[in-house]
């Protein structure tokens, strides 16, 4: 599985939506399931999955999956 597919799957699992409905352009604005609480859970899940730690300031207002991927890349994670 590619790293790109993996991030989408993590997002889909946390939001409990089919992975097909999560693209790099999707975010809290396009997916009603992406609430602020789910956003937090996503952050915690990504930390567990990638072994990284975020400052919430970095990820608080990330608008899309693509932007999240960019933040992960700055942490040296596969993009």
């Amino acid at each position, binding site marked *: 599985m590619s790293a790109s597919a993996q991030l989408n799957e*993590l997002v889909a699992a946390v939001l*409990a939506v089919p992975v097909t409905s999560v693209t790099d352009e999707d975010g809290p604005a396009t997916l009603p399931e992406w609430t*602020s609480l789910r956003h937090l859970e996503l952050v915690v899940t990504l930390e*567990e999955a990638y072994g990284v730690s975020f400052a919430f300031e970095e990820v608080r207002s990330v608008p899309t999956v693509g932007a999240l991927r960019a933040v992960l890349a700055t942490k040296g994670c596969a993009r």
Partner: protein
Amino acid sequence: MSKDNPVTARIRAARENADPGVLAALDDLVGFAETRDAGRLLDGLALSRIAPPGHRARPLRVAVVGTFTAENVAPLLRVELVRAGIDPTVLVTGFDQLMTQLTDPDSELARFGPDVTLCLLHDGALMPMTWDPTELAGLADLAGSRLSALAGAVAEFGSRSAGAVVLNTVALPRGERRKVVGFAERARLGALWRDLNVRLLGLADTSPSVHVLDLEALLTDHDAALRDERLYRFASMAWTPGVEREYVREAAALCRAVAGRARKLVVVDLDNTLWGGVLGDDGPHGIEVGGRYPGNCFTELQRALVALRRQGVLLAVCSKNEPALVEQVLATHPELTVQPEDFVTTVANWGRKDENIRQIVASLNLGLDSVVFVDDSSFECALVREQLPEVAVVQVAGDPSGHALAVLEPGLFATLATTATDRDRTALYQARARREEFAASMSSPADYLASLGLRVTVSEADEYSLPRLVQLGLRTNQFNLNPRAHTEADTLAYAADPDRLLLGVEVEDRFGREGVVSAVWLRTGAEWTVTNMVMSCRVFSRGVEHAVLADLAERAAASGVSALHALYRPGERNRAASGLLTGFQPVDEHEGATRYRVAVADVPPAPAWIELCRKEQTAHV
């Protein structure tokens, strides 16, 4: 790592096409995130879509009410409960609504009608946000008044709700502790905080339906932080996911106890399980037990088993060994902590263990779902898992120092409170075995019953019998006229209410006392209604239920009542109870059960082989 988790994928697929293997696959969930996701997917999914045909899950309504946000508790709990044979309906109320949910008679919580209410407490429940840990004067009073308010709310809720209410002790976050720089003052803060937790724990004594989980103690074995400051500051999440998991494991164990799903029998292997080494190869003097490592590890396992036995769990040996040698070692080895009389039965032979377990369970009149099997062998464990999926299998592998803890897994044997009958249970079952030998020596069943010298005493519940009657109501599956008719709190209400009657039945015979083995819930009035009767399977086939009925008829007649009603709700396991209703006529459907009626004058007297006794009711001080 892969996120294409096979278990969550199967649950998702089961929404479309039923998949009876999913239930067993839930055991493969390991990580926090995948377990939480699985729990979310299980919400609203009928268990029949993921469980094998014939799976009997016990419905349970659980409410999660917190003083902080604990989003993951409900999904994690759902997974644990489904795995434990429970079909949960979970309500999560909004953030920080604990007091209003408890005290408002029309709150979401009150309308939900929970069997179990989990009140999640964090430090904010005891202290205001602005408290100063360096200024201890007055803090005890402040926290004390908050605790009193909480206790009052819990009591008020308890007066309206029948369910169990579960509180927890609270750990002091390190941020508060570190604000105090003096070691002397830090010790005082620690003492004050512990005192608050002691008072919280004391609330468990205020009512049998209030329980307090000692979360602070649980966390001493937990390797992650209490709090993720980011989650707390940003979203009022006071517990890290790891703490939520610890809490859920303990809460799920309590839910199992409420649902009567606790295990009742440990079937334990001998070689490399109860002791180190192989008896047949190493000889009685070569096995490892007692003394230094590793023998002391096996002693520790034995201490765990004896502790379980003292609290009502039955122990049985199932070993591939020479029976004479086993008997000799159990009776004479000086280092053994377990004694032969700790075991309700000792099976040493060369047969298949699944068959042996079936026979042990049948001889004790228990269900396979009440068994825990403990063995070191991968082969035996796999065989039992495969052949007897209802049995909980604990494979003791690896370093023997971990074996005792593996057997003491919190979910397996949890019970709400133990009773005098629990402490004597092994002896009771052993007496039963002697009774059966005696029966075999008699020429006919009638001779046998006549020679038993049965004495049956029916009496109103008192403070001594009440805990046992509550327990009988919760854990009796077979002779149970109206399963799940009464929760613990209902039973307590029957004992207290002048218009209702709670009766306990004691049985004694030439082999000794069986103790309180049956309970009757009765609504009195112009015509009396037995809303439930339960009887332990230990005293089946002796006519005890007919003696109880005769006693009820006597009591009714003495009160000028001419008819008895009984509610019967047939289920999958309680057919044994229908025998009581011989001579009754069905009348109508009533409160989800069928109502039967018999004229008091038509109730036959107690069987000739039973002496019906009356106990003087004494007021206990």
